[in-house]
């Protein structure tokens, strides 16, 4: 399984619709337990959706986040970029909580 850091950066690329990430996401959907444990899909999906909502929120505000999303979620680096929106901070918290629950290595 991939690390939590790589997983978050990968999912951020997926929600940003980067072609390479989308192709890998298709593979991940088929390859059970390779990218995440199959029975932990809900936490992955919840994270993916939270990131998608985070991106929607930024787009509505005409903002672009150029930092590392895994840094924001795993150690709070750059979190202040999102502090204008309580909704965004809530989504970050949800991602953080999911990362604590999944079996992917740190």
């Amino acid at each position: 399984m991939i690390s939590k850091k790589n997983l978050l950066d990968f999912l951020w690329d997926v929600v940003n619709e980067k072609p390479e990430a989308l192709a890998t996401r298709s593979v991940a959907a088929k390859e059970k337990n390779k990218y995440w444990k199959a029975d932990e899909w809900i936490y992955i999906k919840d994270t993916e959706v939270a990131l998608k909502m985070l991106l929607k929120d930024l787009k509505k505000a005409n903002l672009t986040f150029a930092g590392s999303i895994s840094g924001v979620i795993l150690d709070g680096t750059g979190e202040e970029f999102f502090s204008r929106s309580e909704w965004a901070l809530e989504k970050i918290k949800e991602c953080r909580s999911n990362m604590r629950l999944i079996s992917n290595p740190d």
Partner: protein
Amino acid sequence: MVNLVIKDIAGQTYELTGRSSAPRASAAKRYSGDAYSTFRFVATLPLASDQWVQILKSTQHYLPNFDSSNPAEVRQAVAQAIMRGDLTLYQLPSLNISHGIKGKKGFGLSIIKGPNPHSATELTPEAISSTDAAQQLLNDLGISTQAFLGYLTNENIFNGEQKKNPLSEALQLLASGELLAYKIPLPSKTPPAKAVEYVAAASADKPVPLAPESNAKPEQPKKEPVEKIKSSKIDDIPVDVSNVRETTTADGKRIHYFKQEDVKVKKLYGGDEYFFYVEHEDEILELAYTTVDVDESSLEFYINNQFNDNVLMKPEGFGITGEVLSQSIDLYADDHGAPPMHLNGVIIKKNLSNFQKEYNDIRVASPNLNEDEIAVEAVKNISFGRERTKLGYSDISVSATGKKEVLVDGKTLSDVPTKVYIKAKRVGENK
């Protein structure tokens, strides 16, 4: 004598009777609540103050002094009349497929208690004179024994668990008229083979409807048609049901109402995930994701009515969970030749909180049950379990771990599971 049928803005119907009248429908369930909840409930009914005043006067019982031009005082007087028993409200079952069993030929069945039929429908119950005729009806609609019995249990109108021959007894109830079956047309949908495309996970892709494309503009809050209360006894009470539905929640979220035919689905990742959503103007409003595990013959769901910031998704006349589960099962069956064997999944968020509350309550109420039994009972009591049971996935087992203290709705629950994995296996035919 008061005997009225009231239809609220969500389509739910009620019978309102006076002290000496019984409800006309056998399936009517009496409303009961404390004074405050009754007042709140009355406030949800779409009757104007002057209409309530006429109803109160027609009860010919004692009326307290109240200002008939003040809606709150009028509702208070109505609530008091209900508490005294001068008026009684009965909820009528919904005759739609969300509360029925889906059949395979464009129809489903909604079954209610008889012998007196539903008092607020133009549908007539199926004429069933024998158990053979009852069985024939199920056969004609392609409804399995398991789905039939599971539905009756779920609707709380027949429990076959302790019966020697539950099917025979249930069919007998239909033949004797103690249960009445209504044939309900299923909402039309485009055949999945044509309607569903394999698409990449890009939000810009063209959506694929589950129902025929509509030429209508994206949904706006619509005015309901004005209806009149049906009354067999006092026809001189005109009651307009105008559109008074809420457009925002108490905490300021926009409520987005949508209909069954507005729900669309895309297959993602070559059919390994299904994505359910509703379109609104240029926006995609997410509803649910389903992941497909062909090896395990299982579907898992992620359903949420609050995906988007400040928007609450509200279905009209159907349930999101039931719809997503049914549509996903149909898509899976079309792709893989049979419905999935399992609807498994981990519960999170509201589902998890509901489970934890139930778990805590059952543990207190039934100290003789072991942990596994408590967990299974708790799952059966939450919508996650109920919806699965309704669809025939009633063999439920639970792995509940990570016990700790949690806060649910302001209440501290000690030593309840925080990681809950549920297996729901299909029982009955077509294994």
